[in-house]
């Protein structure tokens, strides 16, 4: 099987953000290994990547609500024939519907990401571990209709 390359990892990182932004209809949960573990947002504990992806998929905006992600320079460390670590900064601007039905705009300006990819037996790269955090709390404001 082909060794993992930096280009492979760059493509997967950009695919991840295209899905999250609603610009690509691929299934987010298929980007994660069944055993993936993730730290996201404000969660105090890690959780299953698959479960988090299902939850996050429900929040992906429809075509009427654009989200925008900007990914900084992606540092890729190839740490084995089938494993690579991607580390980068990002900003993400999206809308969320709260429990009371109101919409808020959430701007994560100083996001930081570590995603560890492993090539599976089917040749696909999948995230086995993810740690997303922010150097400053995301800014929230009421979204327009």
């Amino acid at each position: 099987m082909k060794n993992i390359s930096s280009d492979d990892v760059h493509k997967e990182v950009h695919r991840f953000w295209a899905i999250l932004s609603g610009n690509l209809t691929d299934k987010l949960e298929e980007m994660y290994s069944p055993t993936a573990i993730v730290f996201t947002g404000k969660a105090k504990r890690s959780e299953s990547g698959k479960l988090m992806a299902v939850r996050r998929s429900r929040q992906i905006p429809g075509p009427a609500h654009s989200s925008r992600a900007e990914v900084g320079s992606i540092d890729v460390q190839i740490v084995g024939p089938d494993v690579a670590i991607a580390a980068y900064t990002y900003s993400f601007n999206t809308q969320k519907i709260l429990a009371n039905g109101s919409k808020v705009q959430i701007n994560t300006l100083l996001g930081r990401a570590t995603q560890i990819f492993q090539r599976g037996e089917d040749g696909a790269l999948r995230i086995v571990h993810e740690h997303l955090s922010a150097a400053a709390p995301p800014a929230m404001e009421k979204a327009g209709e």
Partner: protein
Amino acid sequence: MSNISSDDVRAEVKKFWDFLSRKLKSQFAEMYLSSATVFAADARRMEPARLMLVRRERELLGPASSVAAKLGPIDVQPLGADLAIASYPFHLSITRTRASGKRYQSEVPSGRVTQVFRRDEKGVLRIIHEHMSSAEPVSTKELPPTDPLKHV
């Protein structure tokens, strides 16, 4: 060489915090591979571990600084014979001395860390990537200047 076990990784994690809290500078620095990269908890960007080590040594490993950590359960994900990921929550209390000489007490109540360990050519597990963050805002307060007479 045998595969990395979860127990091996948990032992390294405990060594990491033991070296940091006991201010064992060289042992702490040796936990990182020379090519290691780090997202420190309060940093906007990733940096080489060697730079982070210089800062941690100045701020956290001096005589007027201290580090106390309580670790939560450590998840270990083995990735082949030479690689494993450790991830766990932690509670951290630190007293930090800035370059200005001012001292600050910080509480990180909901810290989270990912550490990727790789076996080096001697078979020693060392960190190749680290990402620390806090799920809640870190509270920091300035401490009054220390009385020099107390250190005589």
